[in-house]
Each structure stands twice: as structure tokens, then as C-alpha cells.
């Protein structure tokens, strides 16, 4: 049976929900062991036991509080070797994709990024060419690294007794973070949200974003932006959804005044349900939408917020 190492991603010592999806998915591939790297993660590491992982290695050191590619990759590679892992699996977040590449390089392992499926024969499916095609790829190395797109698996609770062991690690990161420049805004990140309300150029201007925000608030959703409005300076880059922004796969994606350029679709079309609101009935976004309303976002959004309040109150 293959041995799978699940790398759980943490931020501020809290494990991200995608890691629980990965833990659940990993069980179909072999015997699973977990690893968490951070400054104080051994308590949090136990939560992997709620998702069926019995053995977790916690690599804890003050210097590992923030992601350092070389240090984290070395820690993961060391654990992978110690545990005899054939497969290393993690979420396809921006950190995950970066870390996976470095882990692959250190292990001499092939890497398949942003997978939407990993087959029994360990080939994997991944979107390419801005999602125009799906490639089934094969990694020829003995060890294989995969990153899994969000919402590919549903996290399934399956409580087991879990043992967390601490691992000593001489972190001497060649590249060290001097300072964390965090934006004061503590809003829910699009990459982590279950519901997203995104605005495009059809919103008319940044002054109208309260309409997006109101609807998002009722839904407990994150707000997203198309590349066009980010380029125009209406919204911050952190909100950009798309091939070159964030690739998201939430349960519900509401696109308001978004035309649906290929690059935007590449970033959201695997969302479970897509709603499009646009004045133009020919807008490409309607081709991927499950539900659409042809109308003026300025009118539709306030009504939507009201109707949602009735149902969600």
C-alpha cells in the first residue's frame, strides 16, 4: 500500500479547511500520515485526527512561524523520507503550489499541480491552457507530489485516535522573512470562502461596491473582483479571481457585471454553482452559469440582498 504524507497548511497556527479536504482525499490513495510546520502547531495538529489521520508529525520552531520555502520544504522532505512516503499531498493554495514545487525539487519527485482528481494508477487530472483542456498527467518518479484544488474533495469527519509527534528541525532558512506587511483589512479571503460575490466592470465604478459588499454580507461571503476592475484600480489585487489572480472553487459563485473572459472563467468555472447577473445576454459568463439574470446589477443586487435576507434571517 502506498504511504501518503498530507501536508496540512496553517496560518497563525490554525489549519486551513482545504487541508481537511486533502486529508479525506488522501485515504483513497493509501496509508496516511500528516505533517504540520509552524511555530506552535502540535495542539492544532490533533485536529487531523478528526479526519482519519492517526499519525501526525509537528515540526515546530519559532522561526517557522511564517512560510519560508526552503525551510518548510526541507522539513516536509525530511518527514517524507523518514515516513517512507511515496506520495506527498497538499492543498493547491498559493503557498501549497510553491511549497510543492520546492518539496518536489528536494525529493527528486515529479509534481502535478492543481489537480482535480488523482486516479488509482496515480495519474492525475489537471486543468491547463486557462482551463480550456484537462490534461491527464503521469509522474515517472518513485516519489510523487500533488496539490489538490479546493472543493475537489469534501472533508469527511472520521474521528480516530491521533498521535502527534514533535520533530526536531534545525531551521536555518537561507531566505528569511524580515517583516510581515499585513493589510489592515481582515476580510474573508476569496480563496477560502464557500460563497463569493464578484464584481466586474459592469458594476460601473468602485463607488458602487457597497452593492457587492451588502450582498456578500448577507451571505457571509467573500468579495471578488475581475482582473479588469483590479487593473482599473477599483479593487485590490488580493480580490482578483482568475487565471492570474486566485483560482477558486466555492460552492456558490455570483458574478455581477462580469463578462466572463476566458482567463476569469479559468479562475472560477469549477465552482459548484454559478450565478451570472449581466446586462448583456450574450456575455460569455452565461455559458458557465447555472442560473442567470439578464439585468442591471444596480437594480438586481439590492433586490438580491433583500430576498436573501428573507430566506437567511
Amino acid at each position, binding site marked *: 500500500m502506498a504511504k501518503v504524507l498530507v501536508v496540512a497548511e496553517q496560518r497563525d497556527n490554525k489549519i486551513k479547511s482545504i487541508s481537511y479536504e486533502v486529508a479525506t482525499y488522501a485515504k483513497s490513495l493509501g496509508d496516511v500520515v500528516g505533517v504540520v510546520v509552524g511555530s506552535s502547531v502540535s495542539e492544532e495538529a490533533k485536529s487531523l485526527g478528526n479526519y482519519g489521520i492517526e499519525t501526525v508529525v509537528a515540526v515546530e520552531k519559532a522561526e517557522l512561524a511564517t512560510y519560508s520555502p526552503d525551510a518548510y520544504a526541507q522539513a516536509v522532505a525530511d518527514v517524507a523520507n523518514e515516513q517512507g512516503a511515496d506520495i506527498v499531498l497538499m492543498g493547491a493554495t498559493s503557498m501549497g503550489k510553491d511549497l510543492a514545487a520546492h518539496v518536489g525539487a528536494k525529493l527528486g519527485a*515529479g509534481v502535478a499541480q492543481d489537480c482535480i482528481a488523482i486516479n488509482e494508477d496515480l495519474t492525475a487530472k489537471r486543468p491547463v491552457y486557462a482551463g480550456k*483542456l484537462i490534461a491527464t*498527467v503521469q509522474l*515517472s518518479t518513485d516519489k510523487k507530489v500533488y496539490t489538490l484544488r479546493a472543493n475537489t474533495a469534501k472533508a469527511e469527519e472520521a474521528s480516530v485516535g491521533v498521535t502527534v509527534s514533535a520533530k526536531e528541525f534545525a531551521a536555518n532558512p537561507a531566505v528569511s522573512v524580515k517583516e510581515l506587511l499585513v493589510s489592515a483589512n481582515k476580510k474573508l479571503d476569496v480563496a477560502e470562502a464557500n460563497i463569493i460575490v464578484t464584481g466586474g466592470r459592469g458594476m460601473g465604478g468602485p463607488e458602487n461596491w457597497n452593492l457587492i459588499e451588502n450582498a456578500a454580507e448577507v451571505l457571509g461571503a467573500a468579495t471578488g473582483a475581475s482582473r479588469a476592475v483590479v487593473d482599473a484600480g477599483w479593487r485590490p489585487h488580493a480580490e482578483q479571481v482568475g487565471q492570474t489572480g486566485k483560482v477558486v472553487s466555492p460552492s456558490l459563485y455570483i458574478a455581477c457585471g462580469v463578462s466572463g473572459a476566458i482567463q476569469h472563467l479559468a479562475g472560477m468555472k469549477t465552482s*459548484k454553482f454559478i450565478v451570472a447577473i449581466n446586462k448583456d445576454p450574450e456575455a460569455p459568463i452565461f455559458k458557465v452559469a447555472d442560473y*442567470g439574470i439578464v439585468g442591471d446589477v444596480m437594480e438586481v443586487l439590492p433586490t438580491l440582498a433583500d430576498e436573501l435576507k428573507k*430566506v437567511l434571517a
Partner: protein
Amino acid sequence: MKAVAIIREVPDTEAVLNIAGDGKTIDMSGVKFIINPYDEYAIEEAALLAENNGAESYLIAVGGADMTKNIRSAIAKGANKKGDIAFKEVRHLIVDGTMESNSLAEKLAEEVKSIGADVVFLGKQYIDNDDYLLGPFLANKLEANCVTVVTQTEYADGSVSVNREIEGGAEAIDVAFPAVVTLQKGVNEPRYAGMKGIMKAKKVAIDSKEISMDNNVLEVVSYELPPAKAPGRVIDGDNAVSELVDALKNEAKVL
């Protein structure tokens, strides 16, 4: 300081890509190729280092035999207003067919080592494969430091201070040379190629060699179209919004 900018060609985003008869390659006939958009930042960064920091900058281009036109545009984009070319040398690594990140990293490492580069610039992602592998793989083979998605750079002797974009902010990081740095939008403002640069770029010698992908760790077994989605429905009428909310609640069950 020696700086290398690596650029690679990719199919134009608007290109229609058809799966070839063998099911595992793309029929590239008639497909227009462009320089990967993020690589423009690499060209600009290397040009700026040559102009402002007295660095020796090199350009390495990777792509098919027909890439010459795009390479000359890239050279022109690195020229100053007088048309002075920023690059000491321009190399073209000719790849016939599909590129693979490990093989490519190996060949590029050879080139970079032969130059003795302190810093290597790449775009943060390639819009065809979105694999985020080349930078880290190359750094590993060069035994160099690697920092990705960089939005700001400040150079010192033997190192660079960068801002690295992360969710909700940035990290300020010092990276010692040798380093591989992948660049994100905002790190610099790629200039438009001027007429003088375009003219002078035509005369720049391009050192071409064919390379083969002979250490692939990833192979494409097949391509397929994404699963066809059942057509959605447009809800119209006066009560469209309440109907939508109802559908979301009772049909889609996402509320």
C-alpha cells in the same frame, strides 16, 4: 552583478487549441505564440539592472524555431530611448514540441551556470501550464535561493530585498545571491519598445541551439475537454430575483 532574464513562448490566450489525433498532444498548427505575459517583468528588471546598477544582463529565450520575431520584440523591449540594447548576449534554446519543467530547468541551469549569474528572473507563472514549477526547479539545480511572486525589489551588494505577495499582504524578505526570482505584476513597469530599439534589435546576434527534453518527470498521457456543463437557465420576469433565491435554496441547496 550578472542578471539573466528568461522568457518563454506560450500559445496566445485567445487561441483555439485542438487535441491532436493521438489524444496526447495539442495540434499547434496555426496557433499564434506570444511571449508569456509575466516574462515582460523579467525583461524589464534585467534591463533596469543593466541601466541603473551597471549589471551585465543576459536574455535567454525558450521556444520553437519560429520564435525569432518574438525574441527581437523582447530585445527591443529591453532597450532604452536611444535604442541601446540592455543585453550582453541573447540565447535561444529551441524546443521542438512540448516543454517539460524538469528537463527545461536542467537545460536552463546549464546556460545560467555558463554565464555565472547572480540573479535569474522569470515571470511568476506560465499561462499555458500554470504549474509554478520552473522557478523552484531551476533554483534547486543551481543551488540558488528562490523567492516567488515578487512585487518589489531593492538591490544591495550580493543580495536583493524583496516584497513577496501573500494572501492579505506581503512579506519583506532579504535574499542572498545567487537567487532565482519570479516576478509579479507591479514589480516594475515594462516599457514600450521604441523605434530605435526595434531597429537595433534586428541586428542583435542570437545564439541559437536546439535542446531536447531528456529528463522529463511529468508526461501528458491524454488531453480531454473539460466536462460539459448542463446548460443553465436564465430566469426572467418581474420576480426573477426571488425565483433565483428560491432556486439557490431549494434546487441548488447552497444557502
